[in-house]
């Protein structure tokens, strides 16, 4: 855990130094994020000009969900997605050897190595939206709910990370898997809205095939005080299983890679 944090710090600094050379990219990202957020807010505005609740969710609760959505997608695009893309590229080019020979845990290294620093804008905007939403909730968020929110966010992050790692690891066998990650991004868009509104088949896919439910809806439920014990336990259990499972799968993949290139 400490290794993760320390290496993440190093690569964040590195990413910052790289990106400061291209400062225009900051404005590009700023415009993208603001447009994305504006579109989301306008969408909510149009929906709530015709109804008071959407699938049982009130406006402030959906605003909180939008904040969580931005926060999580910001985190994914800040570290997880770019690192995994770089890793898959390395496997394809055979340059992963340089990573494997480093005196750190290779899984940790490939997980935090590439940082798209300007995605911090999404995280910042998501946090602002979340704070505004919290101030508008009818019932204030107690310590229990705040704790549940923290736990479900961490669990959701772990689930998404493991999901990415498992998919990326399959690149040891199949060369072009980044397409699957793009498909995940299109499915992830569904997380702007509570998954409860989708028909059962789509809801199941968003819960068990791609981890959208646990990344967005469940943490927002925790804030709105509508989280069930079952969801909380499932989220934590799934996070544990997926972290262990992805670690094991990663080991299998790396052994295969070493065998192929040596």
């Amino acid at each position, binding site marked *: 855990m400490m290794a993760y944090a320390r290496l993440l710090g190093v690569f964040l600094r590195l990413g910052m130094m790289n990106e400061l050379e291209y400062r*225009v990219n900051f404005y*590009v990202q700023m*415009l*993208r994020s603001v*447009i994305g957020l*504006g*579109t989301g807010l*306008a*969408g909510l505005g*149009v*929906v709530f*000009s*015709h*109804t*008071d*609740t*959407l*699938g049982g969710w009130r406006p402030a609760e959906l605003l909180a969900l939008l904040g969580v959505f931005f926060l999580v997608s910001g985190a994914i695009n800040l570290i997880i997605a770019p690192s995994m893309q770089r890793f898959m590229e390395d496997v394809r080019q055979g340059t992963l050897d340089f990573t494997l020979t480093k005196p750190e845990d290779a899984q940790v290294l490939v997980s935090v190595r590439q940082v798209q620093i300007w995605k911090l804008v999404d995280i910042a905007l998501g946090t602002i939206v979340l704070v505004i939403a919290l101030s508008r909730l009818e019932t204030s968020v107690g310590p229990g709910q705040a704790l549940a929110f923290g736990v479900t966010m961490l669990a959701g992050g772990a689930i998404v990370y493991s999901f990415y790692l498992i998919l990326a690891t399959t690149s040891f066998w199949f060369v*072009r898997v980044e*397409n699957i990650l*793009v*498909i995940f991004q*299109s*499915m992830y*868009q*569904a997380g*702007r*809205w509570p998954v409860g*509104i*989708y*028909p059962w*088949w*789509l809801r199941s896919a968003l819960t068990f095939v791609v981890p959208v439910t646990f990344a967005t809806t469940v943490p927002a439920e925790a804030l709105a005080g509508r989280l069930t014990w079952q969801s909380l336990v499932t989220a934590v259990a799934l996070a544990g299983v997926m972290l262990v499972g992805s670690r094991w799968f990663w080991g299998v993949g790396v052994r295969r890679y070493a065998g192929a290139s040596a």
Partner: protein
Amino acid sequence: MSMLAGLLEAYVARFKVALGVQFQYRASLIIWLTWTIMESVIYLVVWTTVARSSGGRVGGFDTQDFAAYFLVTMVVNHLTFTWIMHEFEYRIRQGQLSPLLLKPLHPIHGDIAENVTYKGLTAIVLAPSLVPLVLAFRPALHPEPWAVVAFLPALLLAFLLRFLSGWTLALAGFWTTRVFAINEMYFVAMLFLSGQMVPLSLLPAPIQSLAAALPFRWMVSFPVELLLGRVSPEEALAGFAAQAFWLSVSVALAMVIWRAGLKRYSAVGA
């Protein structure tokens, strides 16, 4: 006459090339399909949920009407969309425009042919995936015969209008290397004002007036509403007139800006 035959021959040749290129990228077809379907299904589900929580109807749409609206919009949006803005920027930046200019045929013909080929190919993937969507969401679509007949020219005009305005917008690449901001704005305007996100009649009144004054509505929403039977024959005629008007504006703009841009391009000295 021989010029037309020559143009036709050039199109057939371009079709073949574009087809060959597309077959190399089968995975991107699947990605595109997921994006297209997910986007429509998300809006479809959101609005049917709104209808349900308001006693089954919102602004003249019940759940099955919404299903029909968003599935038809998905098809119309697919048949009319263009990505030329992204390609053109690359083309100018990389100097790929120069060889195109040497050819005796205006580059727009190659672009149209490529677009149409892509549509044809993707329609093969899109059509079967409509079946489960129709079974799942039960759209209510009972168009009058005249509306079906009128839908086809409306769709064709919508495609030409959207393609030409997109192509003209892409020419901004002659003047700036940062066309992405323009593209993003255009994308958002399309999302809200062409009826992709929500039927225009459900938008607040000021935005509806804005949509009426701008060309976006005629690129997607008009053919959709026509097929859904939400347009009277008189309104349909007025719609065709509006499409023709905006199309001639686009053609004029495209020609003027293309000429100005070419001067600029050679001045930069490729």
